[in-house]
C-alpha cells in the first residue's frame, strides 16, 4: 500500500484515475486478490455499517455498564437545534448510533478500530441520507478511507493505547473527510487537503475512557470526530487548502502520540477518566457489571 498520500495523489492525478482506483489496484497487487473480490469485501462492510446505524437509531441498545445508550435516538426524534434538518444532524446521530451499538456488544466494522468505528459510517451514511449516492460510489469511498488509514498506520499509529484518541477518532476523522470529499466529487488533491484539515483539528487529543471502557467519552468523541470531518469536507470542497501536507500532519500526530504520557493512552489514569466524577462513575459501573 502507498506509504504517503503525496505518492497516491500524484499517481492518481498522473493516471487520471480516482484515489479509490489507485488504492484498489495496489491492494490487489499486494494481496494477490482480484479487485472485484476486495470491492465485495468492502460492500459487505458497508452493509454491516448500515445495519449498525439502523440498530443504534432505534435507541434500545444499552452498554454493559449502562453508561451509554439511547442518545442517537434523541438526535433522531428529539427537539430541534440549529442543525435540525441538515446533513450535519444526520451525521451526528449515525456516528453515535454505531458507537452505542459497539458499546452494547453489537456488530460493527472496526474502521480503523472499534473505538473509532462511528465516524466513517456516520459521515458517509449521513451524507447518503441527504444525497443520492450510488452503492459503487460508497464502496469507492470506503477504499479511499482505507488508503488514508493505511497511510496513518504506516506513518503514525491507529491505536489509542499507542497514540491517544488522535490516533483513533482523529485518524477516523481524516479517513472520513477524505472519503466524503471524493464521494462529493472532490479531486485527489482536495481529498488530501480534507485529510489534513480534519487531522490538524484533532492533534493532541488524548485517550481517557472512564474505567478503561470504550464508552465515555468514546461515543461522543465519535460524534465530534465526525463533526470535524464534515467541517473539513466543507472547507476542502470550497477550495480551501491547508499549507502543511496531509502526510506531515499525520507525522505530527505520530510524534505527539509518542510523547504522550501513558496516563493519556487508554490507561484511564488521566483526562476525563481521572476526574472525580469519572472515577466515581467507573467504580459504580464496574461493580454493577460484576454483580450482573
Amino acid at each position, binding site marked *: 500500500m502507498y506509504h504517503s498520500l503525496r505518492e497516491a495523489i500524484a499517481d492518481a492525478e498522473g493516471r487520471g484515475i480516482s484515489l479509490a482506483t489507485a488504492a484498489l489496484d495496489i491492494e490487489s497487487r499486494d494481496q494477490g486478490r482480484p479487485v472485484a473480490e476486495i470491492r465485495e469485501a468492502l460492500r459487505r462492510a458497508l452493509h454491516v455499517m448500515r445495519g449498525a446505524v439502523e440498530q443504534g437509531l432505534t435507541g434500545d441498545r444499552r452498554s454493559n455498564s449502562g453508561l451509554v445508550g439511547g442518545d442517537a435516538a434523541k438526535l433522531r426524534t428529539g427537539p430541534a437545534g440549529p442543525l435540525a434538518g441538515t446533513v450535519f444532524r444526520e451525521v451526528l446521530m449515525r456516528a453515535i448510533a454505531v458507537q452505542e451499538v459497539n458499546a452494547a456488544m453489537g*456488530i*460493527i466494522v472496526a*474502521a480503523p478500530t472499534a473505538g473509532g468505528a462511528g465516524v466513517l459510517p456516520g459521515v458517509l451514511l449521513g451524507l447518503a441520507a441527504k444525497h443520492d449516492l450510488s452503492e459503487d460510489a460508497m464502496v469507492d469511498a470506503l477504499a479511499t478511507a482505507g*488508503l488514508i488509514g493505511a497511510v496513518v498506520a504506516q506513518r503514525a499509529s*491507529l491505536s489509542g*493505547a499507542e497514540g491517544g484518541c488522535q490516533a483513533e477518532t482523529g485518524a477516523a476523522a481524516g479517513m472520513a473527510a477524505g472519503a466524503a470529499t471524493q464521494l462529493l466529487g472532490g479531486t485527489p488533491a482536495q481529498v488530501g487537503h480534507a485529510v489534513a484539515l480534519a487531522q490538524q483539528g484533532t492533534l493532541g487529543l488524548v485517550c481517557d475512557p472512564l474505567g478503561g*471502557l*470504550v464508552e465515555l467519552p468514546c461515543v461522543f468523541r465519535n460524534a465530534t470526530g465526525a463533526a470535524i470531518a464534515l467541517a473539513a469536507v466543507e472547507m476542502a470542497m470550497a477550495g480551501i487548502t491547508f499549507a502543511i501536507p496531509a502526510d506531515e500532519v499525520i507525522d505530527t500526530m505520530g510524534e505527539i502520540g509518542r510523547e504522550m504520557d501513558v496516563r493519556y493512552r487508554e490507561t484511564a489514569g488521566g483526562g476525563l477518566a481521572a476526574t472525580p466524577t469519572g472515577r466515581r462513575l467507573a467504580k459504580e459501573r*464496574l461493580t454493577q457489571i460484576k454483580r450482573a
Partner: protein
Amino acid sequence: MVSLLDIIGPVMVGPSSSHTAGACRLGLIARDLVAGTPERALIELHGSFARTGEGHGTDKAIVGGLLGFRPDDERLRDALQIMEREGLDFRFEKTTLGDEPAVHPNTVRITVHRAHRHHVMLGASLGAGRIRVSEIDGYPVEVDGSHHTIVMVAEDIKGSIARIAGLLSEADLNIATLRLSRKHRGGDAFMVIEVDERPTDAVGAALKALPWVRWTHRIEKVGG
C-alpha cells in the same frame, strides 16, 4: 504489509478490538488445542484483561472462542449463559503473570481439558484484533493466528527440515513461512510453520509419527 481490509475491518462484535475480538481469537486457539469445546477450562487473566476485562466483555469473548464462536458472531454476547446451559466448567481467575514489557498487559493463560487431552497456552491480544500465542504446554512458540500453523518440537538432527518440507509438499501444502530456533547445537529445535491451507489429520499424524518429533500441534487460522 498493511491491507485496506485490515483498516476497513474486521467486522466484529464490539466494543474493543483488543479486549473483545482478540480475546475471542485466543479462545478459539485454546479450543483448537483440544480439537473441540473443552469440558473444563481455567482462564487466568492478567493486567488490563484482569482490570477492565468484564466491562469489555473479555470474559464472554474468551468463552465464546472456547465454544467455537468467531469474533463476528453475535452469540458472543450470550456466551456465559450458553456456557452455563451446556454445563461447562469454565473458571476465571485474576492473576499476575509477570512484569511489563516482558508480559503484555492483555495477556491470558488458558488451560483446557477435553476427554483425555489437556493443554495450556499463554497468549496476548496486541491491539486491532491481532494476537500472539507465546507458549503452548510450556514450549515457547510464536503464533499470530493469521495462517494455519504447525508448531513442533523436534530433536535437532540433520535433514529434519527437508523431511518435514517434503511431507508437507506431498500433502500439497504450501509453506508461507518457517521459523526455526534452538537453544544450543544438538538441543531441541522449535519450529513454527505457517501454511496456506488447513493441514489434514493425516498430515498431523504423519508428523507425530516421525521418531525425532517430540511434540506437535496444528493451529487453525483465526483471523487476518
